[in-house]
């Protein structure tokens, strides 16, 4: 990790360069950086030249191999999906959880389970719709409230800002459910030389993500068509549907994905990570199977929870069909290749990969 940079550098290199993912890692630490909706800004330079904000950011220099070694004890052998112990299909056994949650309800079921077992004392979750298109981050301290945060939103939100605030007060161990950029930022926090409470985060569940939408432009787009405060659910059904389904109190609308793509945050185009490669557990959909999740177990801590949850009948798993696995690999690899192309297009220099630092071997495999 590079040392000696602060909020002024963050503003220049990330915020003004259109690289901000709105993950919230830099927010809630100090009074200088604020977020409203998905807009992050340095309100006033703080004068600190070696700041947490710069150090935690998932879009400042990130050495992938070093992170692999720190988290997994070794560098990755799988270039498309990152380090993992197992990949399976999973679903929550409780049908209510399955119905409320996205796909198989595994994230909600595992989070509530980890809390009820005392593995974690509280979890930072994102409530997808709170009478607004904009999701809100909440600290859930009671496992019964987990389900109210179920579902996806596709709008980036500063979940880690809530984590930063929670870490100032919370002494209990924490869990978090986040997007790949948020999980990456969490790992950078845990690796940082700057003291912070992130070592208390004992369970990091990462979600699959291909892109997130910018609140402002998507909100503008929807405004004339529906009342954004009435949205209940956003859904992108598996291919070949190629559409975004918006479910509101007043009815359901569908938009072709191509129409939506212009609202994708510019930083998503340079994102290298589709499957939350640095999480304890990564969860996403299974193509063609509605009520099951793809579950990637990456760390021993993740494995332990999964084993217990299976034992206690919270979730069940079964092997992921080979076709699905290879599809997943292809999709993930495609995202990485596109990201590399886009980065080089932006920098105009094959050796300037912006925030990414990859081993030569990795780079060769991807190129």
């Amino acid at each position, binding site marked *: 990790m590079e040392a000696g940079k602060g909020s002024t550098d963050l503003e220049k290199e990330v915020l003004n360069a259109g690289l901000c993912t709105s993950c919230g890692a830099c927010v809630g630490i100090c*009074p200088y950086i604020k*977020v*409203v909706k998905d*807009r992050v*800004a340095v309100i*006033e330079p*703080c004068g600190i030249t*070696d700041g947490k904000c710069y150090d935690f950011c998932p879009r400042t220099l990130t050495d992938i191999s070093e992170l692999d070694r720190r988290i997994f004890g070794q560098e990755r052998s799988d270039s498309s999906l990152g380090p993992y112990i197992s990949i399976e299909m999973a679903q929550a056994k409780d049908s209510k959880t399955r119905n409320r949650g996205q796909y198989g309800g595994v994230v909600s079921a595992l989070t509530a389970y980890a809390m009820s077992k005392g593995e974690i004392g509280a979890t930072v979750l994102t409530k997808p719709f709170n009478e607004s298109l904009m999701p809100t981050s909440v600290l859930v301290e009671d496992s019964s409230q987990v389900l109210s945060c179920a579902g996806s939103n596709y709008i980036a939100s500063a979940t880690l800002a809530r984590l930063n605030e929670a870490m100032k007060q919370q002494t209990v161990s924490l869990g978090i459910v986040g997007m790949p950029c948020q999980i990456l930022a969490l790992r950078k926090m845990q690796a940082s030389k700057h003291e912070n409470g992130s070592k208390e985060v004992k369970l990091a569940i990462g979600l699959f993500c291909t892109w997130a939408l910018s609140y402002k432009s998507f909100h503008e787009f929807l405004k004339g068509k529906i009342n954004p405060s009435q949205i209940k659910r956003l859904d992108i059904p598996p291919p070949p549907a190629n559409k975004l389904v918006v479910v509101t109190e007043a009815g359901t609308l569908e938009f072709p994905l191509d129409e939506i793509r212009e609202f994708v945050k510019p930083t998503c185009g340079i994102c290298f990570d589709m499957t939350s490669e640095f999480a304890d557990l990564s969860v996403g959909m299974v193509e063609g199977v509605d009520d099951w999740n793809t579950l990637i177990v990456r760390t021993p801590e993740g494995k332990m929870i999964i084993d217990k949850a299976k034992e206690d009948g919270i979730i069940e798993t079964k092997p992921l069909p080979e076709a699905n696995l290879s599809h997943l690999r292809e999709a993930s690899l495609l995202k990485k290749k596109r990201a590399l192309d886009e980065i080089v297009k932006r920098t105009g220099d094959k050796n300037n990969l912006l925030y990414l630092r990859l081993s030569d071997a990795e780079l060769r495999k991807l190129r």
Partner: protein
Amino acid sequence: MSVIKIDRPGQSVLMMGNEAIARGAIEAGVDFSSAYPGTPSSEILESLARVAEHFGLYAEWSVNEMVSLEAAAAASLTGLRAIVAMKQNGVNVCSDFLMTVNLSGTKGGLVIVACDDPSAISSPNEQDSRNFAKFADLPLLEPATFNEAREMTKYAFELSERLGLPCIIRSVTRISHSRGNVELGELPERKRSPSFEGVSIAGAFVALQHAALHQKLEQAREDFENSKFNWYVGPEGAKFIIVTSGTGWFYSREAVAALGLDSEVGILKIGTTWPLPEKFIIDHLKPANELLIVEEVDDFLEQNIKVLLAEQAKTLGPIEVYGAKSGHLPACGEMNQDKVAKALATIKGVEYSGRDEAYAQRARELVQPYLSPRIPTFCAGCPHRASMWAIKSALKLDGRDGFVTGDIGCYSMGAGPAGYFQLKTIHCMGSGIGLATGFGKLGQFDFNRPVVAVCGDSTFYHAAIPGLINARFNNSNVLMVVLDNAGTAMTGFQPHPGSGIDALGEPAPVVDIEGICRAIGVPVKVRDPFELDEAIEELYDLLQEDGPKVMVFRRRCHLAETKERPQKKVFVDPDKCIGDECGCARFCSRVFNCPGIIWDPTTKKARIDEIVCTGCGVCAYLCPQGAIVIEGN
């Protein structure tokens, strides 16, 4: 007990110039008084309001100077005596009416007091209101001492009544806001009864009315020829004469004395400066061949004297005139004794120094390294500090290089470090929203920076409503932020139409700001600026909307608040304060800049200055470590 109420004729008491003017009005039996607050004029109406009940007179804070003059003129038109007071900018506001009430004429004595602010100590300009007297063909009086301020006011009522014309008194900061000996006069007993028959209506007769006005002014000139407010001191037959008015009298006399020129330089002091008492002046200038004109701000006297000299060239012969045009005295900024003495010394070819030059040099040297200027800031606890921070934050988050147009009030300081340099314009009352409506319509020229107009509550009523209506009518992209601190704070927290009390402190109906906005058809939100996160988010959201919209930041002036309620104690927990470290970097003392918070460089912790702190507690909300604690919370 109010000093202007004392009934002991002949006694000398300490009075502020503005109190002396109010006392003069009382001695003249004033019936009606009105004003809009403005430094340095506010104490005139404040003083009158305080004794209104006692003397059975009427006193009101009007919504602006135009209405104030119109209301006072109404009383005058019924035969009552009325006074209206304003700062120099207020004369501009009421000038439209002024330029016609001179034609219609008045009945009961109507005195307009214009208090100018040379050096613009508390103003956006330093205009010289005397020009309005000449412009409007109205008699003008300039007091030179505190007692003269009292006497002139009393006389102005009599003159106004005799001529059927409003009479203007021009004071300046150094008269209005200084104090000195005032000799009390008799208090009147007579009461007037109002009656109204209508006034002559302008139209086909305007030119005739104008001619009549000139005749009235000629009458005034005749009256001024024998006025006790004009005098000459100095040697008989002096070749060098200082002609002066107003505070120039003090400075001229002291400068002549300081240079030891009493035996050769005479001083001709004119108190009735429009129309000039020509015969009186010519008589006194006959022996002179050099003049120095001493006055404050414009070369008003100088130019009119020069015209007189030209007209009387045959009688007076060639006279050299020194003053603003010759460069010996400035035509801007406050006058003082040193400026006059230096001018006099230059003309006379003598040395002048207030003190030993080596000493002065050493004094400046010693002080130099220490003296960063003490720039005015918002008071400890001032809601504007939080409002400015919220506006700065919202504009930064918005990211389109938005900016703020300013207006007149305490928040004008937002242009400086107190308000994080947010205000980019400051002109006159109501100009913030007016400018903003223009900036907000430049989209077709690809100027799309968001514009925020700030305006105080008192300013809102005074002059901002037409601007807001214009923004709505023409659908301009502006966000107006009304900084409602529940009073006219800058000038001393006088009540206004939103205060719920009148000039006498009696209950009054409240004119609702949000209601006005809604009636105009503009979306309006209300928020306590101390709820900063919510305030920032709401401002941000409003900035994303097209068209005009209003945010009211409502929190009472903390200076007013602490006068009525005991203040809470606030302290810093040194164990929690992280000072210079990442996560704070001295936010409270270095950036938020409340004067109640001190950075202690030895302990490297913030500290509350218990004498300055007013206990508002917003710093406790802002501290990222929760290190600032409010006692009892």
